[in-house]
């Protein structure tokens, strides 16, 4: 049996500081919103001429009065991702096409064009925030129906920890937040909850079984009993996610990365956060038995 409970305090301090750092990052550095939430235009280009590179493209586009243009390689040397802010000109894409063809010859394939107006991006951001809030709220309701309030609190604290730290990491690394990241965050919410609930289920079962074991010991027993399941499921999920990350193409990179972070945090938090809340609230056999009577 591994003595997870030996490190409860240390990891709690770590988690609290991680959350604080994440919140500070979110407040001061903010998130790198993609065009879904900020509005603007995105063009994915493939060139057939290997001599064309990021800087020549950037020089060319900067003369077009597009405002702040960002040009990056996307996946490989001949694929480029161009982004700029909302433009008054309705025919801007047509003009870029003409301009590039004139300067570099007919060597471009416009693989993807996305243009999100300011009104739509504001709506998408709002509905994204609502989706995550509703998800958190529903999880709260579900867990509140299923468990005693001490457990619910533990699960919710773990949940917030996972979401905040994942977003904090995205802020730190400057990774783009787009619609698929919202999907990832929601899936993380589900996964983290899932992991916590499985351990809590066991804690409650053990609470009924043993009256003489303190919660500090009891959580440790429960974690150990469910440990192999926790690990196997994390591994298979991570295998699937890494496979998406490495082979699923550029579009899914951000999504799978967010999910990978989320699964790791989710596994960690169900061991070191959800359980420690139970310990700190001094949950005992009485807690579950009282509920049973009701």
């Amino acid at each position, binding site marked *: 049996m591994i003595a997870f409970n030996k490190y409860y305090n240390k990891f709690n301090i770590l988690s609290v500081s991680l959350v604080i750092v994440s919140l500070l990052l979110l407040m001061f550095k903010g998130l790198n919103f993609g065009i879904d939430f900020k509005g603007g235009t995105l063009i994915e280009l493939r060139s057939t001429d290997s001599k064309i590179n990021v800087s020549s493209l950037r020089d060319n586009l900067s003369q077009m009065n597009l405002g702040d243009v960002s040009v990056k390689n996307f996946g490989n040397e001949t694929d480029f991702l161009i982004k700029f802010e909302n433009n008054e000109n309705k025919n801007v894409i047509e003009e870029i096409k003409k301009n590039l063809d004139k300067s570099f010859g007919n060597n471009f394939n416009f*693989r993807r064009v996305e*243009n999100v107006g300011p009104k739509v991006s504001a709506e998408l951001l709002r509905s994204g925030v609502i*989706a995550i809030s509703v998800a958190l709220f529903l999880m709260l309701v579900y867990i509140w129906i299923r468990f005693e309030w001490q457990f619910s609190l533990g699960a919710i604290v773990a949940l917030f920890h996972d979401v905040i730290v994942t977003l904090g990491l995205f802020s730190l690394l400057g990774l783009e937040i787009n619609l698929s990241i919202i999907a990832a965050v929601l899936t993380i919410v589900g996964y983290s909850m899932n992991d916590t609930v499985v351990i809590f289920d066991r804690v409650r079962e053990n609470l009924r079984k043993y009256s003489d074991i303190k919660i500090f010991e009891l959580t440790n027993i429960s974690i150990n009993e469910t440990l192999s399941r926790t690990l196997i499921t994390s591994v298979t999920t991570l295998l699937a996610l890494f496979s998406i990350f490495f082979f699923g193409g550029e579009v899914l990179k951000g*999504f799978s990365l967010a999910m990978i972070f989320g699964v790791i945090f989710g596994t960690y938090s169900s061991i070191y956060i959800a359980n420690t809340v139970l310990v700190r609230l001094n949950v005992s056999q009485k807690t579950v038995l009282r509920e049973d009577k009701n």
Partner: protein
Amino acid sequence: MLYFSKLRIIFITIISLLFIIFALSNLFNFDNKILNKKINLGLDLQGGSYLLLEIDNDPVIEQKLQNLTVTIRNYFKEKNVRITNFKLLNQTLSFTSDENSKQTILDEFTSEESELNPYYQRFKSHQLDIVEENNFFKVSFSKQGIINLKTSSQDQALEIVRRRIDEIGTNEPNILKRGNDRILVELPGLDDPMRIKSLLGKTANLTFRFVTNDTESSFGAEKLEFEDGTEEAMVSKRIILSGENLLDAQPRMDTENNETVVTFSLDRVGAKRFGKATSNGIGKRLAIVLDGKVISAPVIRDTIATGSGQISGGFTFQSATDLALLLRSGALPAPLNIIEERTVGPDLGQDSINAGMIALLIGFILVILYIIVKYKIFGIITNIALILNLFILVGVLTIFEATLTLPGIAGIILTVGMAVDANVLIFERIKEELKSEKNNLIAFDSGYTKSRTAILDANITTLLAAIILFFMGSGPIKGFSLTLGIGIFTTLFTVYFIARLLTVLYVSKNKEKEGLI
């Protein structure tokens, strides 16, 4: 938990086979209508354009209030009520009257059977709101009035958008209402949306009006630019003929001048008016105005009584074709703005399919190998269930002819990763039970029973997340929530019916064997 009746086994087999057949129907073509269902590929996988259009209703509101000015003036003239100082500002029409008429005016507007201000009978709310202060009246559209106006202009716009897109002939366009002032257009397989965008961006409001110097006429005149921006002309506001009177319009090569023109034919009313105007106006210039810009303003040389004519304006064949198309399909009630556009080229779509399939295959193989290493014979059982799970999931998607997107494929891969969770929970529990229970059958039975709540909890939480995503998300994300959500049900089915059945068969043959799992 370990007993399966024969009937149930047959039932499970039939259901599984059914879904597998549907899953496989994506690969083959069947003549049968029911069997020949296919999963739809989302725009991100097959390539195509997604356009969200917003109707700009402000000009419509202005126009309606402008028209109302005349109506109100005439209406009260008949009743000998004097109204002066009509003004239209910020979508509010204002006018003044005297103390004696005040009550009459207010009554006319607020009566339940008001002709001037309808809708009350139907919606329990008037079309217009009226406020009065010191004999100064302000009239504007009520909430209900705005809703009705928006809905009707959305209906009209949808029809026109559909006609324009049909004229171009793209395959299986999807044109839907969104809210009460938006239209969603999905055009699968469309590589270059430029032409459609420019066609949808035009209101196509065509009018024939005389060029005039007389700014004093009762209709007024306005200075309009030519389409090519070379000159300007004073054009009367009096409309001789509008696009509504057109029956047909076609591009044609005018062999005389060797240029492309658009020929048109008019309906009876239009032909009559056109004949009258051209006979009265010989020697005058007739401006052909499209969306506030003069296309051309030829001098009238002869009376045109045939009800047909042609428009020249330095067109290329393409622009003449487009103008003819716009004229044929009619004018939009209000300008449309493209507020969101997402276009994926077909080769990127194919790349995404390939990448998704490779990721699925590799993820699948990795999970299968890991599970075999972990659980040996029970790993094989889990994997059989997992493979069937994948087939059934695809089968369900096929039956509903659901739309598969790239995030949807990610949802399937994720399902593969998370689907084993339920079997892992069961097997780990059985292992624990075997520590204290020597009888294999009893240990397996209680392993299944005791792990049930945890499995249910775990899947409900994921399902909640998927449901929220389905209702809040758009396009590709919806595809993700769909596969994730359906995946939960297929997982539970395969775990509790297929994997359990195989487990039961194996365990009942090896009742006495020790260290079974």
